[in-house]
């Protein structure tokens, strides 16, 4: 694979400049997703490449092929709906969040023939928790010291979320000196992929007594419905650089965006613009599948366990957790209301001169602390550019106002994943839909917030052989049932300084 060094490229280069790859041969070269990941040229590949490799045609073909397979070799189709997809769907058609889930789930089950439809709720909680514990562990020297941090500790600040594939790819390719700031905690999509392939699959195989001719991980075809095209790249990176020894399969086999999901509805002649479609659905509605506790949208009254924030509430969750930690010894116990009030939410003036909800900071100030506990949520490529300029200036001049932030949730799209490129443009452009979006989000509830691990339930016969009961924390279950390698690997990468286990630069 040739890729041109920027210094050798003349300004008068003649071939197409869409991509550096076609210059190596005269005939048309097909560019694959793997090429895009390996090349140091453009950051994200053309949408056409993404769509041709992980698209609805491919899914259609697989579903059709599966229909004619024998029982032993039939693939099991599992869909995971990411919260921003259901939220946007609800906003587009003015539905309550649970109804959106029920409608999509019904369609995937009954019309397309998916075996399981999950809502990513537990993965959402675990992704936030993984990020919190990594922040805590990396900031431990600062958090446990009674003195203000020295320049060496400050130079590691702020820690940046590594859950947005657009941002991470961009940083790796264009600003690799900033990689040490990146956190390794997996995104919701990756966490869900791991849960499906390493938790759900083994239990399912025991419960259904499936003969182990083909490992169930390989028989499960896992489709993630996502707000973002770059998640397709993310799923592929996992496959290429799986952190678990011996893994030969991706944890997410295909990523489809909401736009592609809407095309699927269209192909099956379901007219979503007609309100009748929702009053008399052409297929029975269906809750998400319980899947031993991985989903939570099981009844019309269910709530989604997250902060009502567009990216999953990473900044809010980290802020609360860090404040609880630093105030534990020094401040008298506050009640919940006082605690809420003690955290200030304001526009992040260190990032932008204009007031915007796409750059917010959360701060707890107390004179007895060596430094205020401040985190920020910064969304959109424009603010991301400003952040990067300031971080690079800090590397040259060894200090920066941004070092007052302990953690920044940095996402490439304005409105984070609720502004994702895989969502219909109305979600970001039409005022009525945007208003709906706000109210749908308000139906989230941070029931597990940052302290409580969601529980999963293990079937009685399996639970009997394990050192815990039928209701157990998902982490315990994963660790004991089937997941030991992953958890230990994940925990150890958390404290190391190498680039993320999810996003390893291919050399």
């Amino acid at each position, binding site marked *: 694979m040739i890729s041109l060094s920027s*210094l050798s490229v003349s300004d008068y280069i003649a071939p197409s400049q869409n991509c550096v790859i076609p210059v190596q041969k005269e005939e048309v070269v097909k560019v694959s997703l793997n090429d895009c990941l390996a090349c140091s040229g453009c*950051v994200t590949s053309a949408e056409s490449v993404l769509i041709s490799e992980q698209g609805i045609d491919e899914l259609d073909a697989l579903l059709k092929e599966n229909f004619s397979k024998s029982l032993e070799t039939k693939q099991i189709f599992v869909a995971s709906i990411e919260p921003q997809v259901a939220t946007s769907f609800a906003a587009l058609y003015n539905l309550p969040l649970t109804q959106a889930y029920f409608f999509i789930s019904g369609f995937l089950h009954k019309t397309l023939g998916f075996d399981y439809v999950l809502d990513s709720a537990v993965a959402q909680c675990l992704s936030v928790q993984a990020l919190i514990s990594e922040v805590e562990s990396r900031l431990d020297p600062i958090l446990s010291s009674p003195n203000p941090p020295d320049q060496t500790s400050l130079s590691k600040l702020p820690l940046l979320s590594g859950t947005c594939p657009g941002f991470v790819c961009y940083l790796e390719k264009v600003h690799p000196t900033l990689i040490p700031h990146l956190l390794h905690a997996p995104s919701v999509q990756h966490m869900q992929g791991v849960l499906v392939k390493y938790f759900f699959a083994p239990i399912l195989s025991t419960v259904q007594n499936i003969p182990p001719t083909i490992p169930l991980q390989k028989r499960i075809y896992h489709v993630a419905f996502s707000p973002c095209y770059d998640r397709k790249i993310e799923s592929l990176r996992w496959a290429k650089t799986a952190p678990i020894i011996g893994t030969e399969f991706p944890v997410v086999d295909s990523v489809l965006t909401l736009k592609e999901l809407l095309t699927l509805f269209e192909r099956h002649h379901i007219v979503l613009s007609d309100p009748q479609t929702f009053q008399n659905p052409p297929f029975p509605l269906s809750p998400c599948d319980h899947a031993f506790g991985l989903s939570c949208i099981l009844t019309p009254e269910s709530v989604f366990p997250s902060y009502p924030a567009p990216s999953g509430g990473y900044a809010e969750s980290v802020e609360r957790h860090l404040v609880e930690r630093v105030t534990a010894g020094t401040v008298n116990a506050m009640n919940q209301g006082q605690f809420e009030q003690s955290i200030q939410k304001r526009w992040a003036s260190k990032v932008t001169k*204009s007031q*915007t909800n796409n750059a917010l900071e959360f701060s707890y100030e107390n004179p007895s602390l060596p430094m205020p506990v401040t985190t920020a949520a910064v969304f959109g*490529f*424009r603010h991301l550019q400003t952040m990067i300029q300031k971080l690079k200036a800090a590397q040259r001049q060894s200090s920066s106002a941004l070092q007052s932030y302990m953690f920044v949730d940095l996402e490439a799209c304005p*409105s984070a994943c609720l502004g994702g490129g895989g969502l219909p443009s109305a979600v970001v452009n039409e005022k009525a839909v945007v208003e709906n979006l706000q109210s749908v989000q308000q139906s989230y509830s941070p029931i597990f917030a940052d302290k409580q691990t969601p529980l999963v339930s293990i079937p009685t016969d399996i639970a009997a052989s394990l050192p815990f009961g039928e209701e157990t924390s998902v982490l315990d279950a994963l660790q004991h049932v089937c997941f030991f390698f992953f958890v230990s690997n994940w925990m150890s990468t958390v404290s190391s300084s190498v680039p993320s286990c999810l996003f390893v630069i291919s050399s």
Partner: protein
Amino acid sequence: MELQLTKLCTLEGSTGRVWFLCWSPDGTHIATCGEDRLVHFWTDKKDGKWSEVWKEEKHTGSVRRVDWSPNGDKVASCSFDKGTILYNVHIETDPYGFTVSEEVDLLSGHEAEVKGCAFNKDGKLIATCSRDRLAMVWDIDQGIECLGILQGHQQDIKGLTWHPSYESILCTYSYDNRILFWLDPRVLLNGQPQFDEMGCYEQDWKVVEALEGHTSTVWDARFEPKRQKKEDDDGTKPIYGDSFQPRLVSASSDSSIIVWTRPDDAHPYAVGQTIPFPPSEPVYSADWQSTASDSMIIAAVSGDNAIRLFREDPTTHKFSKVVELLNAHNDEINCVRFSPTDPTIFATASDDGTAVLWKITSQ
């Protein structure tokens, strides 16, 4: 009245192609940049000679363009190393005194070679553009903030320039043969910062005009300067609505320059005149200046090493060739720019490793 070109002075000292040049607003200095990865600063020694007074070596790749801020205190250079550097410069009252302060800022957002950079009128904004098909606008007043990422060109963006009277309009030109005009979304709220109440989207810079007429890469585009005489610049209207509708001249690989005109607010820019060059000679740069007789002169340079001047007919407003200097340089000429203070002087930069100052004289 016959016009003639006289070579005033050759700026020698670069190794490799000289890509571009810019003048200090007071006309006393020139910055050049090129393949030697350097930015050279030259000063007018008032004895007919110019000499090099400063050299900047901070880039690690070919330096494609330089621009001098309108108030004179900053210079920007952009490079194939993907970065743009801002220098604080100080011109001493002593004619030979010149310093670049060590406080420099580096803008490094582009994914590929940066091809152009341009300060706006008050020097508080700088725009950059790149082979990554993006233009970026930066607020550099009291800290750096990215104000916009302009996505719309299908290919490499070769350069950009700000509209002289509508200060919220940025003009970019590209390998995709088009010239695009972009509107700063902040003017939609009377220039006040936009508070996105809904918190769910921010306005992007939008394309308000697309000039399609060239059939190959557009290498340069320049608005006509305001004429000295009949101008009524009240400077109060930030968006379309100003009475001054400057023409635009663009230079292209299709062996032509186009003079674009915009008759009034209600009509977009359209091709006013296409001036053909010898076939297969790309035109790399063009600039214009008003003359004492209040008609415009366009200077254009091209791949055939020639400089050509075109003069406007005061009644038909059409341009016709008045000077053709073949072999003005020993290699392709990349850039031409008039002096901001003396309308009879301009400078050119060439692949032959030199920049040259020229004087227009009439016989």
